[in-house]
């Protein structure tokens, strides 16, 4: 197995944490992993993305240029990365903030209204966990139940009060992905 996952959005959407959660959870299953952020002069409010590699082999370059899975949390990310997903790969779009057409029939595309769903759960910042739940379901990479177990290890202790909400978000992402995958 060699998965190259790219997660992109703007600062504040929790894309870095989402990637770290994936990398950490896979590490705990004894995969080789790496996490690599884009880094540039923009510190706040700009675009942000990170690449996560999960592999049975030692990780080569930690930079993900051709993702097997791509999560686009906003429109600029979708426009920038939709064409980079490898054939047979999977593109997850936060359709609340990115509704452009994608001209790819060689990849699986899921449109998850993550920001709106997160607002309905009462906290827009869990949109990332909704997308992670959907990613988990779409790729059978790491199960949602396993990711839930990891929350207490990944979130700092002062945030542990948010674990139930994050669990709900992961569940909701899974449900939304299941429905779309059933239609397909």
């Amino acid at each position, binding site marked *: 197995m060699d998965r190259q996952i790219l997660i992109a959005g703007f600062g504040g959407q929790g894309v870095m944490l989402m990637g770290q959660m994936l*990398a950490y959870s896979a*590490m705990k299953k004894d995969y*080789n992993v*790496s996490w690599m*952020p884009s*880094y540039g002069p923009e510190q706040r409010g700009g675009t942000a993305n990170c690449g996560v590699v999960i592999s049975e082999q030692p*990780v*080569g370059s930690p930079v993900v240029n051709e993702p097997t899975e791509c999560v686009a949390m906003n429109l600029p990310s979708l426009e920038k990365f939709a064409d980079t997903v490898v054939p047979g790969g999977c593109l997850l779009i936060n359709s609340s903030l990115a509704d452009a057409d994608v001209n790819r029939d060689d990849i699986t595309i899921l449109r998850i209204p993550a920001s709106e769903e997160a607002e309905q759960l009462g906290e827009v910042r869990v949109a990332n966990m909704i997308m992670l739940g959907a990613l988990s379901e779409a790729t059978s990479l790491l199960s949602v139940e396993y990711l839930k177990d990891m929350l207490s290890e990944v979130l700092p202790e002062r945030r542990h009060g948010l674990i139930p909400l994050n669990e709900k978000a992961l569940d909701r992402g899974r449900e939304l992905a299941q429905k779309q995958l059933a239609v397909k």
Partner: protein
Amino acid sequence: MSKELVKGNEAVGEAAIRAGCRYFFGYPITPQNEIPEYISARMPEVDGVFLQAESEVAAINMVYGAGGAGGRIMTSSSSPGISLKQEGISYIAGAEVPCVIVNMIRGGPGLGTIQPAQSDYFQATKGGGHGDYRMIVLGPSNLQELVDLTYEAFDLADRYRNPVMVLGDGVMGQMMEPVVFPEMRDLDELPEKEWATTGRGQRDETNLINSLYLDPQDSYEHNMRLADKYARIKENETRFKTLHADDAEYMFVAYGTVARIVRKAIESLREEGHRVGLLRPITLWPFPDEAFEQLVEQVKGFLTVEMSTGQMFEDVRLALNGAVPAEFYGTTGGIMPDYRDVAEQMKKTMDKVGDAS
């Protein structure tokens, strides 16, 4: 010990503290800022000192003073900042002050880019500062090795009373990877430094940290003594690793982050039936010349891959001394090579060498 998922820059900081480093002097520069940030939070927990200097120039001179006074000292920076430290590094080498310097290389020259590069190889291994000195230069290729070499760098520095540089790059500083941290060193077990300027106390003689030898005969003898030390370091501390050296007909030479990418290229080339391997220098100075001597009987050609326009390549050619063909492939200015391009270049090398023979 359990694996932790850690950012490279933070891993350096933790490894240093576990190695007994209790004094850090630095100045902000991307892409290594998490090193001083991490250490500024961590040092107070171990009663250590973190001090943000007014410049890299001041920081390296604080290192000189603190190292001369007997502490375990580290500073870190990235390329333009390391250029500013060169004066101090020369004095540190001349006065034989042990210390560890981390360079998370970014592309140059000048302000360059903040993206990763290996274009400071010359600066690190061929001087950088003035004078006839050598610095031990360690080139880790993953975060575990970054941790282990940083940890050991302090012992090497103390053993030889010499500056040691850990040479990483922007990717290594920014990425996260699982690491297992070594044990916290017992400070009581660190070597005594009877030469340090602690205040003379009960000593009969005063101690002096100095690189000035006005009399040319004294200066000559000092330099020759340093040369002997460097020869000893080369003898004892040269390190490298090989991959598929048992059957390789062609070999890559690569260090640091690039070696990871080359390994991917080797996987794909071997799947196609090509007998290729890797020689990976871990000490960039001392450079593992002998490793090449052992391989020239068996290997038809070497392809050096770097994130530069060919810096380590010069050392490779010196080591091979024309015995077998040496080719080069590099990306520079902050661009990382793609493993498929690397594999393609190896095929070109094989064709070229094959045609010639």
